[in-house]
């Protein structure tokens, strides 16, 4: 097994953990962090698969660099919306998820 393949498999594990976290965690901050874990997994798969037979692929590295910056922007937007929800509802979770609603 090459290191590149190992990176890709780790990325898959991170992606699955993050995706499960997005659904299972009730708190919005945890959902946002899970979403970032998911994204990191996808980036690791992209970079790892591109170099699974040794050579470095500049194209996938550049795309992952682009992706990281976009995910930072998306995280900031999600945090701003979550904060807005906190200000309006008093808690950082979706209203429908509170029991007996």
């Amino acid at each position, binding site marked *: 097994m090459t290191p590149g*393949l190992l990176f*890709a*498999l780790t990325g*898959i*594990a991170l*992606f*699955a*953990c993050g*995706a*499960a976290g997005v*659904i*299972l965690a*009730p708190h919005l901050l945890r959902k946002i962090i899970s979403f970032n874990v998911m994204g990191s997994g996808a980036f690791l*798969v992209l970079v790892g*698969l*591109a170099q699974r037979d040794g*050579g*470095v*692929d*500049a*194209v*996938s*590295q*550049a*795309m992952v*660099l*682009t992706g990281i*910056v*976009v995910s*930072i*922007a*998306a995280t*900031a*937007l999600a*945090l*701003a*919306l979550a*904060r*807005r929800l*906190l*200000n*309006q509802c008093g808690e950082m979770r979706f209203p429908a998820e509170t029991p007996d609603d």
Partner: protein
Amino acid sequence: MKLLPRLGVTAVFAVLAAVLVHAVLNLPEPAVRLGGAVDKALGQSGVSHPVTAVLLNFRGYDTLLETAVLLLALIGVLTASGQVPGSMRRLPSTPHAFLQSLARLVSPLMVLAAGYLLWAGSHRPGGAFQAAAVLAAGIILLYLAGLLPANAASTSSLRAGLLAGFLIFLALAAAPLRNGALLQYPVEMAGALILLIESGLTLSLALTLAGLFLCLPDEFEEEDD
């Protein structure tokens, strides 16, 4: 959530992971090798580092749209927080004197490091995004140390700074349209154009990234009015 649905969701994602692992382990050999193609065309890109060549020349439209996405995210954050750029939130408490002197000491070095990263991008790992991240960290550090007055920059010049990088990039990307192709820089000028684009991007991205942090809404601010 009850225990049973939690177990169900966990099982679904475990199956998903297993399927993905199976797919990755049985991938066919890649039909095209983009790494080799990049290395072959590197001489025409104007820079000697392949990642920078891909980011700003071969796939420049990705980067162009990415800067637009960052601006859009900042506009979204500003909309959610109901603030205008320039009126950043108040500090929760008076910062420690040690933090202030440390910020004074470190921030010129961060500007220097950002300049180096920007220059290094043409021939080794570095470039506009890394330089902008260091600059943005410097701005946030100065703000947290209470050294950056909340409304130091007037709104119009701050807006111009936020837009400058994207507009320079857009203008230089659209200029070769006369010859029929977006982002098709003339080979002999490509290096200088890339440096110009990256300088503009560094400034604007630093302001945008810092703005994403500094313009987040205050806790319970809306109950004041």
